[in-house]
């Protein structure tokens, strides 16, 4: 499980509280890395990467200080899903914007459950770079 924080300049930090922090939760370590690099290129201050709900809970303060949470819906077999992460954020009174991300089709049970959370948009993998730029701009992270 990858848990790290990457700053805009590529360095790593565990204590920074910049306004434009993005939480990215996905069970694929490579995708975590490339999205962090992408946000760095786009000028977002920091990316908090988490591979599971446990990682999110462990990094509670950093997670709750983020302005945007991108949650992969399926986080591996028999593991808490992105919806569970969303519920955890809700209980923790998360103030940032939440977006679901999935590679699965609409008929996947977890995707169907996520769709019932009406106010949270669902993005389909593979999303274009421009979508990340738009999200970054919405939270004021774009240059």
């Amino acid at each position, binding site marked *: 499980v990858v848990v790290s924080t990457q700053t805009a300049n590529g360095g790593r930090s565990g204590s920074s509280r910049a306004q434009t922090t993005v939480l990215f939760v*996905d069970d*694929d370590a*490579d*995708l975590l890395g*490339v*999205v962090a*690099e*992408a946000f760095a*290129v786009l000028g977002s201050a920091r990316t908090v990467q988490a591979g599971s709900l446990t990682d999110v809970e462990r990094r509670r303060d950093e997670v709750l200080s983020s302005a945007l949470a991108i949650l992969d819906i399926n986080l591996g077999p028999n593991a808490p899903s992105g919806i569970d992460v969303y519920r955890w954020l809700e209980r923790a009174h998360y103030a940032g914007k939440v977006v679901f991300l*999935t*590679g*699965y*089709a*609409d*008929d*996947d049970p977890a995707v169907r459950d996520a769709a019932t959370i009406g106010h949270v948009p669902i993005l*389909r*993998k*593979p*999303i*274009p*770079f421009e979508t*990340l730029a738009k999200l970054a701009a919405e939270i004021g992270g774009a240059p």
Partner: protein
Amino acid sequence: MIWFAIAAGMCLSSAVLHLALGIARPAQTTHIVFAAAMAIIFPFQLVSAKFHGSASIEESIFYARLGVALAIAFMVVFTVFIRRYVSIDVPSWLTTAYLAASAAWLAYDLVAPHGLLFAAGPPSAFTRVPLGPLPVAWHAFNTLNVVWCVAAGWRAARHGRRSAIVISLGAMAFLVTVFVDLLRDVLGREWPFVGGFGVMFMTTVMSVELALDFRDNQRLLAKLLGDAMRVRDQLNTPLQIVRFDLELAAARGQLDPTALSRMQRAVDRLMRLGRSLRSASIEPLP
């Protein structure tokens, strides 16, 4: 007569069942052909009942003519079914000869004054068939036809097609009754024609086998479909990584623009390929 009615009911229900199985998407021609064979043999059973209950020579000739016509049609469609089911190659000259012979039998039956069954003359007692070369030749032709069906099924079974054994055994039971009918006419007896009951027995056996086949195919299809959907869904995360990495490499000027655009097109094609796999209209079986 009740037995003919029961046999007719079984054939009709089998026709409806296999038509329903055959036309369900994706359509299965084997079931449709089998349903057609059963749809032909259904009136044959009723005509047989009327034949054995004939009250006059004219009535007897009329129902015999009709029954023979239906029997010829059945044999042709049944042979097509066996050929499709066991996927056997038949030389085109043999197919042509077979169809020509069947057409000749049918034409003779419809045109001859007393039909094919009474080719040697009208019945002395309503259902007694006078011994003659044509009726015997026709029965022999049917016997050979069913022998071919049994052999084709047996051959497929030897090549590992388990279900073909059942089809072959069903056809063998049918063969016995066809032979009994041949014997009836050769011996000049008046016992009922039993070929229709042979068909009934074969229908039951084959219906069970085809239904099991259908269920197995549905299961296999559902599994393949599930696998395809899983591949499609799991393709998306690697594609996302490649897509972002390409964009990042381009942003850093690490890639030749031509190579970059080529790779982006390849990724787009893979994405379209994944999206073209739609969720199925087939419900997986429990």
